[in-house]
């Protein structure tokens, strides 16, 4: 191309300029209007529209040197040439295109002419076809009408045939008990028959059908009423009857009454929860399900929709379920109440669980029903009842163990080491009780096991644990132990005949052990096992401990009293029945005193097995001797003084009163501490005080007094070691001898040495 000759610097702009100029020429100046305007104003711009050759020449001439002009000229020539060649090329191209276009147009003209001819031919053919077609249809019209009419008649005839055959068919269905078919057939014919019932023949058919359907309905009802049919059959029946326009309400009633009779038959034989769950509840569920299927959930169509059946049906269902469930529950409850044996709780819990689980099914089927909550109540009641039974079982167990202990205490008394058994008995008794309690707790714990459905009910989470198990069972049992222990103190009577003293002692120790450790252990165990959350105030451990301690104290006091009275009785009889005025000179310690010492020793052993030694006041290694001399030589002599010096009758009382002034008052039947020494002190106090009081109402002869002296000395020798404060024994014995001396007609005391000899001889 010539344009290639254009100087390389102007190439991009030059090309563009060409385009733009062409565009300008063809009126397409949408591009670069702004740029043109900037250029256009310059008349010296050779490409601009306002180019003025004169101005341009003048300018060139003015501005440029000759040489420059020459260069400019040659450049300009070169440009002109290239423009020319461009122009020629364009013209040539355009010309070629024009030629080919002319050729194409000419060819088209020829083709169209041919086409026009063919179109004419086509239209002529079409016209011929139309004509033929019109002619054909004209000829076939009559026959078509006839055929249509014939087919109409045919269907009508078929329908009529169906109608005429209907009674027979229904009968056949009836025979075959194909009720469903019969009902559907009848349903199809029913409208037609209704419509044409004014025509006698149809009327006849309709009547026939009615009769048959009546029969059918009758049969269905019969079947319905028949007890034997299953729930499924029954529901089928109901469905058919419903389609037969039977009144829905009546049907509901009938359905339910029928179901009731069947379920009640179930209830008659209902013996175990297991069976109840399996048969009754599942049947009930089935009934509910099918009932809902039938009356409530079915898509409502036709006239049934308008009757608002679901609401009515639902109400009826609820009433029905409630009444049945109530009967069922009463049966279940009666059955549970019969469940008295406390051997295996897991069975009952499982049964209750199953019972509860099944009832949940009813919840799902019948969301608004109160049945499941009633069921839960039954479970709760059963659990409560169970706790009560366990409590009473524990109580009987406790009594039984006590009876065993009592026998054990009574039996080995014959053997030498009889008393040694009581420590073991205590251990075994308390272990027995604890184990029994633990096993009961374990049994009760089943109620709250995780896999039991009702265990997450609020009752079983809260009240059952705290009020039921903790309070109702554990606390009540502990209280019962204390209570029954206390009863031993009260009911036994004062002769102490009915309750062996050893049992009192053992129970006292048991209660004390409970106070110190067992109660808190049991309660902690319970709290841990049952995760008791105390919503309601519960009995605090301290209160129970206090109660146990009180019971222990009471038992021990009573023990002291009973033992003291046994010894007292011996002493009293021995003092009351003897003629002290005319007694002979003492040669021996009286047998009853030896018996007293023996008994005291055995009591000491008995108590020592269960209670700690306790604190006693320090005494010298040879207490008996020391104190003996005190009372017999120094004081006793002064006491006897009045008898020899009648002028000073006050001395006796004075001395005794001074002594009393400085000694503490002795409470005879006073509470004792939980240790051996205190218990023995109590018993000895009671015995000696009795001795004193008995001596005071007797009158003694000379030898009577001496016998008392001997007896007291003997008691002194052996009793001091048992008591916390030997001075107490001395004081009481002093009083006895002093009182005897007072009550003596001829008070001449025995020589101390003689007394000692007699006592040592035994």
């Amino acid at each position: 191309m010539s344009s290639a000759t254009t100087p390389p610097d102007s190439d991009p702009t030059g090309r563009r300029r060409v385009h733009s100029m062409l565009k300008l020429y063809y009126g397409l100046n949408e591009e670069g209007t702004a740029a043109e305007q900037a250029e256009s104003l310059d008349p010296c711009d050779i490409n601009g529209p306002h180019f003025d050759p004169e101005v341009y020449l003048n300018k060139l001439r003015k501005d440029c040197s000759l040489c420059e002009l020459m260069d400019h000229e040659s450049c300009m020539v070169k440009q002109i040439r290239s423009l020319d060649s461009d122009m020629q090329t364009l013209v040539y191209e355009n010309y070629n295109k024009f030629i080919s276009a002319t050729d194409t147009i000419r060819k088209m003209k020829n083709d169209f002419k041919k086409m026009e001819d063919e179109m004419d031919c086509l239209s002529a053919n079409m016209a011929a076809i139309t004509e033929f077609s019109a002619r054909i249809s004209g000829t076939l019209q009559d026959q078509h009408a006839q055929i249509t009419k014939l087919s109409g008649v045919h269907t009508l005839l078929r329908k009529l045939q169906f109608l005429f055959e209907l009674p027979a068919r229904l009968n056949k269905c009836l025979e075959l008990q194909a009720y469903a078919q019969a009902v559907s057939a009848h349903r199809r014919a029913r409208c037609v028959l209704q419509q044409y019932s004014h025509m006698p023949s149809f009327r006849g058919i309709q009547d026939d059908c009615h009769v048959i359907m009546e029969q059918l309905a009758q049969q269905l009802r019969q079947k319905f009423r028949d007890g034997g049919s299953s729930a499924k059959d029954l529901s089928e029946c109901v469905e058919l009857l419903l389609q037969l326009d039977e009144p829905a309400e009546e049907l509901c009633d009938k359905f339910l009454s029928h179901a009731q009779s069947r379920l009640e038959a179930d209830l008659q034989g209902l013996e175990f929860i297991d069976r109840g769950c399996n048969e009754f509840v599942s049947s009930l569920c089935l009934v509910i399900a099918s009932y809902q299927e039938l009356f409530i959930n079915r898509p409502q169509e036709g006239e049934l929709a308008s009757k608002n059946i679901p609401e009515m049906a639902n109400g009826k269902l609820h009433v029905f379920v409630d009444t049945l469930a109530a009967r069922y529950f009463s049966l279940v409850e009666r059955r549970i109440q019969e469940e008295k044996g406390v051997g295996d709780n897991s069975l009952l819990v499982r049964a209750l669980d199953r019972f509860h689980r099944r009832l949940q099914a009813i919840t799902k089927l019948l969301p608004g029903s109160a049945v499941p909550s009633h069921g839960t109540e039954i479970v709760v009641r059963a659990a409560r009842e169970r706790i009560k039974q366990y409590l009473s079982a524990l109580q009987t167990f406790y009594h039984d163990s006590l009876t065993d202990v009592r026998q054990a205490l009574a039996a080995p008394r014959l053997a030498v080491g009889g008393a040694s058994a009581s420590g073991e008995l205590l251990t075994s008794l308390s272990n027995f009780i604890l184990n029994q309690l633990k096993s009961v707790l374990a049994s009760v714990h089943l109620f709250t096991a995780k896999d039991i459905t009702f265990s997450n009910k609020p009752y079983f989470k809260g009240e059952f644990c705290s009020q039921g198990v903790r309070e109702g069972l554990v606390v009540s049992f502990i209280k019962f132990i204390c209570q029954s222990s206390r009863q031993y103190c009260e009911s036994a009577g004062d002769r102490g005949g009915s309750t062996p003293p050893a049992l009192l002692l053992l129970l006292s120790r048991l209660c004390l052990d409970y106070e110190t450790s067992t109660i808190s252990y049991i309660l902690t165990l319970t709290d841990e096992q049952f995760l008791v959350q105390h919503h309601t105030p519960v009995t605090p451990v301290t209160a129970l401990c206090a109660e146990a301690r009180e019971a222990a104290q009471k038992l021990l006091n009573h023990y002291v009293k009973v033992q003291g009275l046994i010894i007292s009785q011996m002493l009293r009889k021995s003092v009351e029945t003897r003629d002290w005025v005319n007694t002979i000179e003492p040669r021996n310690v009286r047998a009853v005193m030896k018996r007293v010492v023996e008994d005291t020793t055995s009591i000491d052993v008995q108590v020592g097995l269960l209670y700690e030694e306790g604190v006693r006041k320090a005494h010298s290694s040879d207490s008996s001797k020391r104190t003996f001399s005190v009372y017999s030589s120094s004081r006793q002599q002064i006491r006897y003084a009045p008898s020899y010096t009648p002028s000073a009758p006050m001395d006796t009382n004075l001395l005794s009163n001074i002594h009393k002034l400085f000694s503490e008052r002795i409470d005879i039947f006073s509470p004792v501490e939980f240790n051996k020494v205190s218990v023995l002190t109590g018993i000895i106090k009671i015995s000696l005080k009795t001795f004193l009081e008995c001596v005071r109402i007797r009158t003694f002869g000379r030898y009577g007094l001496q016998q008392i002296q001997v007896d007291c000395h003997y008691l002194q020798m052996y009793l001091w070691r048992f008591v916390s404060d030997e001075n107490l024994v001395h004081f009481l014995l002093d009083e006895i001898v002093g009182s005897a001396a007072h009550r003596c007609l001829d008070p001449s005391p025995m020589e101390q040495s003689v007394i000692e000899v007699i006592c040592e001889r035994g």
Partner: protein
Amino acid sequence: MKMDDDAPVIYGLEFQARALTAQTAETDAIRFLVGTQSLKFDNQIHIIDFDDENNMINKSVLLHDAGEIWHISGSPADKAVLTTCYSKTSENRVLTCAAVWRMPPEWESGSHESPDDSSNNPQTLELLCHLDNTAHGSVACVLWEPLGDGKRVISLAENHVLLWDLQESSTKATISSTATLEGKGQLKFTAGKWSPHHNSTQLVTANDTAIRGWDLRSMSQIYCIENAHGQLVRDLDFNPNKQYYLASCGDDCKVKFWDVRHINEPVKCLEEHSHWVWSVRYNHSHDQLLLTGSSDSRVILSNMVSISSEPFGHLVDDDDLSDNEENQQEDKGKEPLQDSIIATYEEHEDSVYAVEWSAADPWLFASLSYDGRLVINRVPRALKYRILL
């Protein structure tokens, strides 16, 4: 009135003593009689006059040389006449006898004029008659017919009940009827009480643990409470205002209240003493006040409102209502009043064998312990006013 009006008054006897009685027929002076027990010296009867205004005691001593006194009882009709049970030793045998005595008429003036002389030169009781009982054994107690004319007494001797008629100014005693308690073992009456109810036709006795009621017309047993107490029954007393109510006490440290129509169970049981209870006495006017004495050296005054004849406190007439409306309101708030221990008196240091209300002043009582200490106390004034108002 002095500030320490409620403080006890203590009187000491030289001898040991068990027998105490109020002078029943004396309704003006507060007077108690105490009989001493001494085997070596002549026994005495101390007549204790309490001067309420000055809080002082005046004593007179009468000689009772027959023997040591175990029981003493004043005639309800004649304040100078009394009975004692005393032990007499003869031929190495000790026997408790009973006799009716008359106090010499001058004792009162004599004691006042020269109190110091009285002990040196005491007057002697005048013996009216013996309740001769050698056939029947030792006498436990002699009971005067309550509210009677001082002509009938009962003595309980071993297992016999002897009803005596006193004739010729009590100088002659004849047995009018007797009853004997038969049974296994050696039965012996320990205490008895002549009922003031039913025209004084009933007697109640205690032997061992049993309490028996007797009809004096037929001299036969009318009821028997076996095992009334666990141990020996020591004393009995009738409620002065409720004819079927009876209090008993004994060696089981208990005081029991009985309705003799329902003898299976005691109506009430008190267990306040820590040793045998030897004596129980109803207040003569306000039967809710009960006095007990025990060998634990204590005297306890109890307020047994619930089984008294005034279970709701003193009944105020309607007229008083307007005056005492505030009091009445308070009373109503307190109803029903609780049985309670009013006070425990610890003035004694030896066993208390006898307690007795004064015959003249219903708010005053005496108690006697073995060491010869007589203590006179009053019902706390607060309680007194609460009962009265």
